[in-house]
């Protein structure tokens, strides 16, 4: 049997979803953004909602999410994505509207917008990438940065005295009655990525049922910002991030 006999469409076990564009991602090798983008694109393809989905991209590394997921996008000012999503969903109620935000965007400058959108129970999906650092601006401290973690604005390590403890924003969000589903996942392994995909799919399905806001945090690696190799970054994340940000569904109603 020749190799050509094997390489046939009917024998294919994996293909890139057409909802991902052909553009080469600008993310660093080892970064979690690419995996989460792929998961979102696959969910959109599997649900057949490419024509009905509008994404809101943040300020941060994933500002360019629109270059990779082939849907209509709005690019928001820093932290304001939930306000854009609110108006978009209310003016186009038959659309699936989601925001994609990092920890600086969602948990620092955009706390008012995310809290109130979730409290109003907007029928939107929020994907929250928590890598405990500002990636795009060069590795500064985030509200979710761990105690002792060194960043360019906490060069001797974050201290509780100076900056307070890491903000568990997802636990806060879960308290709000407008949210129907709040989950924390990760993508450092195939198994973890599959769980994240289930969570994100569920979030989009909730949106169709008008159950309220669905919020999925993905604890992510920023190996460049953390100054670790991709493999070491994932190990460090499992060891240090997961105890502070335990995985699993926090709320499901």
């Amino acid at each position, binding site marked *: 049997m020749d190799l050509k006999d094997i390489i046939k469409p009917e024998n294919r076990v994996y293909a890139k979803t057409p909802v991902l564009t052909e553009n080469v991602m600008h993310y660093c090798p080892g970064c979690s953004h690419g995996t989460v983008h792929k998961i979102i694109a696959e969910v959109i393809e599997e649900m057949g909602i*490419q*024509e*009905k*989905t*509008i994404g*809101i991209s943040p300020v941060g590394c994933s*500002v360019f999410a*629109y270059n990779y997921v*082939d*849907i*209509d*996008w*709005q*690019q*928001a*000012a820093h932290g*304001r994505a939930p*306000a*854009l*999503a*609110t*108006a*978009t969903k*209310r*003016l*186009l109620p038959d*659309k699936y509207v989601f925001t994609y935000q990092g920890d600086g965007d969602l948990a620092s400058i955009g706390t*008012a*917008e995310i*809290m*109130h959108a979730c409290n109003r129970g907007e029928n939107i999906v929020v994907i929250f990438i928590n890598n405990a650092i500002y990636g795009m601006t060069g590795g500064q401290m985030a509200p979710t940065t761990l105690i002792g973690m060194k960043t360019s604005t906490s060069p001797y390590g974050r201290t509780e005295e100076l900056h307070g403890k890491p903000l568990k924003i997802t636990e806060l969000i879960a308290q709000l009655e407008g949210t129907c589903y709040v989950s924390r996942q990760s993508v450092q392994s195939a198994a973890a990525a599959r769980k994240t995909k289930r969570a994100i799919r569920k979030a989009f399905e909730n949106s169709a049922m008008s159950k309220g806001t669905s919020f999925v945090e993905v604890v992510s690696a920023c190996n460049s910002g953390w100054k670790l190799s991709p493999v070491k970054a994932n190990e460090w994340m499992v060891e240090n991030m997961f105890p502070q940000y335990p995985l699993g569904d926090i709320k499901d109603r």
Partner: protein
Amino acid sequence: MKGNEAIAISAIRNGCDGYFGYPITPQSEVMETLMEEKPWETTGMVVLQAESETSSINMLYGGASCGKKVMTSSSSPGLSLMCEGLSYLAGAELPCVVVNVVRGGPGLGTIQPGQGDYFQACKGGGHGDYKMVVLAPSSAQEMYDFVDLGFDLAFKYLNPVMILADGVVGQMMEKVELKPMKSRWSDEYIKSTFKWATTGKTPDRKQNVITSLALDAAVHERLNHKLQLKYKKMQQEDVRFETFMCEDAEHVIVAYGCMARICENTVELARAEGIKLGLLRPITLFPFPTEEINRLVPQLKTMMSVELSAGQMVEDVRLAVNGRVPVNFFGRLGGIVPSPEEVFEAFKKEIK
């Protein structure tokens, strides 16, 4: 009805799709009237009280991205919070109408009327090189009319339009003639007319992306040049103003909003004493009626800008006059509105 109520009623009657706002004196009647009218039950218009002015202006960004007619209203301190969003809306070339019922500043200032936000409205306010069409109503009727005109201009230029009112025009009660109703645009109309809007990517077109970001310097310069051309076009095609007794005038007062109403009486006082005084009322503060001032200057001895500020519009008058005749200024601050007589006294002192 009150000027502020006229804004609300006009929004409903002119096919507005969404109002997003946050309460602040002296314009809270806008959202109160909308909530009382419940337009979502009649025209389907969305009305939402946001958690802040920052959020309301960003809701406009979301709604405008969908090709919808969206608006907000606020007063001075609220507008300061919206400046970030206005810069993004201008950068992303999104249409919307923003009403500022100006009060006295700076800071929390006073809830009394003011015109101290002229610079913020006309010279930018937010970051970067951008402009907005700024309409200055001087009656409740114009509050009503300028919502519709504002949406026309916003969609003509794909740019925010500001209605720069003041506490007097907002609170003043006058007769308002309601024009025939316009219905809201259908989703099909929006999809086929505004091909840039985020209405959902269909297989027959590329994805639509609304953004103000362009990291490549050359691309970003091109984007800026495109914006500047648009602002030039505004100056060529959409200057609006009114003149009162300017034909034979030797002196002209320039005033807008409530001060134009007061200065009309000042002109009458002057004419009764045989002084040839006229009034120029800019209706668009940007684009400014520079050409009309140019046309008037040869017949004039002096000009005077009268404002509820420490002197902001006077700078544009002086730029237009370019030193050819003296340009005087009279202003009151802190929410004090001068009488026609007070303006007349100030005018006489200057021309002595």
